[in-house]
């Protein structure tokens, strides 16, 4: 009987260690801690790469999928009450796998096999997270193409500065001018995005 108690204690400690690792990695992402994030890559990059390559992807696909997954975890970790109940790697792998399949690599679509002994959990939010991340990347691409003035203005506006303050910082005539400029910049960005094929693809699916 007590043997099982001992095994139970062992499992409990093991579980505690896992949770500590979870916390460490999450904190590493939230604080952009280079050493901890490197540890994540060191421990898991190869496993994800193997999975992607085995299923018809390339190392570059694996790199993107890995980065996407970490950004999704980062985003989730920012929300209040976020708690990772599974092992960090299980969660990471699950998002990577979903993202990779969802991106619909032509030769991989129907042949994804879970050849690694990885535990795969499915979360109904994966689709939502995936769409948000894909849109994010499209916005990011186009935002970087904009002029610096527009970038600054939009950054300030979405950082919840009011128009008077923005006008002051950017040395614009007044709040009204700032509002007009913001309107034009936003319009421009939206037009670029609407013309992006990837964006249209996303909306279709």
């Amino acid at each position, binding site marked *: *009987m*007590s*043997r099982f108690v*001992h095994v139970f204690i062992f499992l409990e400690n093991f579980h505690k260690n896992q949770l500590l690792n979870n916390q460490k990695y999450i904190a590493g*992402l939230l604080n*952009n801690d*280079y050493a901890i*994030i*490197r540890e994540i*890559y*060191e421990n898991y*990059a*190869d496993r994800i*790469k*193997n999975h992607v*390559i*085995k299923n018809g992807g390339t*190392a*570059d696909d*694996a*790199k*993107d999928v*890995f*980065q996407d997954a*970490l*950004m999704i975890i*980062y*985003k989730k970790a*920012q929300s209040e009450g976020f708690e990772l109940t599974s092992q960090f790697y299980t969660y990471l792998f699950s998002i990577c796998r979903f993202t990779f399949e969802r991106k619909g690599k032509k030769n991989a679509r129907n042949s994804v096999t879970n*050849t690694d*002994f990885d535990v795969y959990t499915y979360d109904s939010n994966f689709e939502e997270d995936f769409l*948000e991340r894909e*849109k*994010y990347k499209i*916005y*990011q691409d186009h*935002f970087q193409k904009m002029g610096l003035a527009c970038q600054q203005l*939009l*950054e300030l506006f*979405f*950082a919840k500065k009011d128009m008077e303050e923005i006008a002051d910082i950017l040395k614009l005539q007044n709040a009204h001018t700032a*509002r*007009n400029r913001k*309107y034009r910049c*936003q319009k421009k*960005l*939206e037009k670029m*995005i609407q013309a992006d094929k990837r964006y249209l693809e996303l909306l279709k699916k």
Partner: protein
Amino acid sequence: MINEREKIERYLDGKMSPTENDSFEEEMENNPLLSDAVTQNKDLLSFFNNKNVDLEQTLSNLGTEYFTNEKATDPTPYTAADAPFKNRIRFVISLLSLLIVIIGIFWYFNTADKKPTDINTPSMSTTEMEKIINDNMLDEQGGDVINNSEDNTPIEIEPEVIDSKTNPTDFDINETENPPKKEGQPIANLNEASFQENTVLESLIRENVRSDSQTRINAPIQGETFQRKNGMVILGFNGTTEAASQFELIIYDNSPKNFNNDYQVLNAMLKKTSNNDSFQLSFNVKVELKPGLYYYLIRTKEAAEMVHLSKFYIR
């Protein structure tokens, strides 16, 4: 248009009054263009909220290092033709690992049942042990400790190593249940209850709770018997460790009730002396203990992590 955009922003910020909110949502349902505009605004908002250029940069750098550098685990490009072969190898490997795990579990449970102890030192006779202990005591305490005086102080112990919290009454073991026995009595006549094994502790001992790789406790060896002289017994504990922590020694008697209530017979810190790159652990004490079976555990002071659990007898 600016007005419409401001409306959308107020809606997304939750700044609309309930009635305004309702009518706006109704308008959205009837006007796909407005609905699209809201979605786009939401996306834009989410983009700026989640924007973390620094983190993306870190990930991108590490990604290049770990994914695109030629330290690939699979040097040959993977082709579909390899699949059956690789899968077969994978299957065989997994089968073998499973087999090893099963054998391991069998072995573990079998040996745990049959062979209760496995102490790090070769076994030593009691007299040899006593000699070592006595020598140690003489070294450390100028030969003063081993005295066969008849005094009735409950316990004689190095004061600096005794936990001040320890209640002196804790040393009275089963006072009511086990009336004192005369010395030299045959064991069979002694109170058998004092020698009864504590099942919980016994199975914990079987579970390998003993010296970890960093810390070895060499004495007392498991099941060692200490002889009383005039009601007093000299106990010697020693071992070595590479760990930086301080170690606590706790002795329980065999009573499950006392163990459950954490009534300790003795609680002391092991003396730690530096010895080249490791530390010598020792603790010697002369105590008044009734004949019986005792369990001792050694754990780290800071984390209370058990590193050793064993037992000894007093006759």
